[in-house]
């Protein structure tokens, strides 16, 4: 501890990264400050003993402070190797890695790791220790007093959405999803600025995975950690990453940009192929409904005439209409429901999908398709905002 890097901190990293130079050109008009970069890989390569080709060859990459960067690529692309070089579970063959401006090799490996949270697919909870003891691992290592550790454990159990009484249980008593929540809590325990996550949600079922992803994003909104996340799942990368680094076999960086940029403009054929043929659909998941114009939709006020309802359905080409009183959605009805009625009633069937302004266009498309119709209703809380239709969405796909 306490050994200083062999250069003034403000000069590291010495080489201006592509990201920094891009930033300095675009908008701000000044050089990006060094402290904006939390982790910097400079010409890093790794060849394993006995290996002929390098697992990672000459990789340079900057991870901005407070962002989630996802390393994604096929097997053998060196994404996990790259991640493990950051906390020195694997030592690079050549090149330098800076964490928070300091050369990673300037401190002893185990001391470096205590300042970097680490979450892995196998979770790796200590089966012989309670949940509380597991979470307390790093605080105990760095010598916090008991009182502070106990408070922190309680705080973290709540933060990751576990019940307080789980503190005294053992890992074997928890489900896979709960165990990985403990894994995340344990990694966050000593409040490290950096979190490394190696396919952390790879071993849980898709529903739990989706929930854990959502929770990670919510957590990140509050904590603003610098997270390097490894996955082979491009959808997970797009969902979680502020930036996505697409790696090819041998640790070749094919593209490093925001998910929207990558989906809109894949750098080359490899990236395009890796993104898959449903690239347009994937892009939709990044566009919130609030960015497109909504249509008033086939709506009729309660007390309106049957004739009026028929005209509305004809105009929109639907076999249903919505009953809306001001901005209150009362439900939807079909022509059959009007048989024998003189006016439109003050009721209707509930919409199955409640889209909000922050829902993505992909969710909207899903709601429309699964409702076997051409449009879906969008709400702001209880307030009805309008309808989004297939045409609007398909315009966004081709854009």
């Amino acid at each position, binding site marked *: 501890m306490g050994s200083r890097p062999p250069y003034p901190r403000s000069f590291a990293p010495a080489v201006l990264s592509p990201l920094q130079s891009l930033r300095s050109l675009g908008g701000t008009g000044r050089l990006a400050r060094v402290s904006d970069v939390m982790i910097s890989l400079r010409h890093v390569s790794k060849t394993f003993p006995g290996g002929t080709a390098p697992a990672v060859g000459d990789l340079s990459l900057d991870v901005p402070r407070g962002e989630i960067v996802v390393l994604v690529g096929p097997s053998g692309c060196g994404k996990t190797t790259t991640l493990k070089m950051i906390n020195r579970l694997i030592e690079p063959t050549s090149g330098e890695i800076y964490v928070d401006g300091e050369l990673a090799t300037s401190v002893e490996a185990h001391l470096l790791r*205590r300042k970097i949270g680490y979450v892995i*697919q196998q*979770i*790796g909870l200590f*089966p*012989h220790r309670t949940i509380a003891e597991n979470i307390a*691992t790093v605080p105990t290592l760095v010598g916090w007093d008991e009182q502070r550790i106990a408070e922190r454990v309680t705080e973290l159990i709540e933060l990751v959405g576990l019940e307080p009484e789980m503190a005294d249980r053992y890992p074997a008593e928890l489900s896979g999803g709960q165990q990985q929540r403990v894994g995340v809590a344990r990694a966050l325990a000593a409040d490290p600025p950096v979190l490394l996550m190696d396919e952390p949600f790879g071993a849980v079922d898709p529903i739990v995975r989706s929930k854990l992803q959502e929770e990670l994003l919510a957590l990140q909104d509050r904590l603003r950690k610098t997270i390097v996340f490894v996955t082979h799942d491009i959808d997970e990368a797009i969902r979680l990453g502020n930036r996505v680094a697409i790696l090819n076999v041998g640790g070749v960086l094919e593209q490093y940009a925001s998910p929207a940029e990558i989906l809109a403009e894949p750098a080359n054929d490899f990236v395009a192929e890796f993104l898959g043929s449903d690239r347009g659909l994937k892009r939709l998941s990044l566009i919130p409904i609030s960015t497109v114009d909504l249509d008033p939709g086939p709506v009729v006020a309660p007390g309106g005439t049957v004739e009026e309802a028929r005209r509305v359905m004809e105009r929109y080409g639907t076999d249903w209409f919505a009953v809306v009183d001001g901005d209150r959605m009362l439900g939807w009805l079909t022509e059959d429901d009007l048989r024998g009625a003189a006016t439109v009633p003050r009721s209707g069937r509930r919409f199955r999908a409640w889209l909000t302004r922050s829902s993505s266009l992909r969710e909207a498309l899903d709601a429309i398709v699964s409702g076997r119709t051409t449009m879906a209703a969008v709400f702001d809380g209880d307030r009805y905002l309008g309808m989004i239709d297939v045409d609007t969405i398909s315009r966004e796909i081709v854009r």
Partner: protein
Amino acid sequence: MSFLADVLAWFADPVNWSGSGGIPNRVFEHVQLSTFAMMIAALLGIIPAVILGHARRGGVLAVAAVNIARAVPSFAIIALALPVSIALGLGLGFWPTLLALVALAIPPMFTNAYTAVRDVDPGVVEAARGMGMTPAGILAKVEVPMALPIILAAVRVSAVQVVATATLGAIVAWGGLGRYVIDGFATRNNVEVFAGGLLVALLAVATEVGFGVLERLVEPRGLRMLRGQEQVVRPAPT
């Protein structure tokens, strides 16, 4: 029936319960020698095994240890230990028996301790390293506690074997319960042979039960749950 009555009479004879040739002293000698042998063997067997298991090196050694243990009969070990003991100037009786018992007890403890530590879930070890535990910390706080149930089971197996084999010490002029068996043979006193054998058997069973209880007491609670869970069929995460 009269044989069993004779055995009962032997046990009832107060002569057999007092003095240096009495049951209490023979049991004491037997336990004393077995305990020494186990303590030395545990030190020599478990410590290197745990360190090699931590390094995940020395698998060949572990396999060789098992094979040797299987190949060489206990009697042969005593026979081999005797000239070694005499050459070292330790003489007859206690030392050659101790030497033989230590040699007998090491292989199962070494092999099991080695594999138990080596086979600790690599995900757990990687998490421990990733959080910044030192190699010694990982060994002491993660690998050994997780391997403990298997190590203790190996200690139990070795201990029972040692208690049973310590009987042979009487051949090289050591005391212990083997005296009854050897002396009984020499004087053609089948009752004494049987009584001695019975006492050894009882002591071996007591050893087995005692270590079994110890294992239950020492096994970390979380591990016991893990074991209970493994009996339930559960698909391994891919």
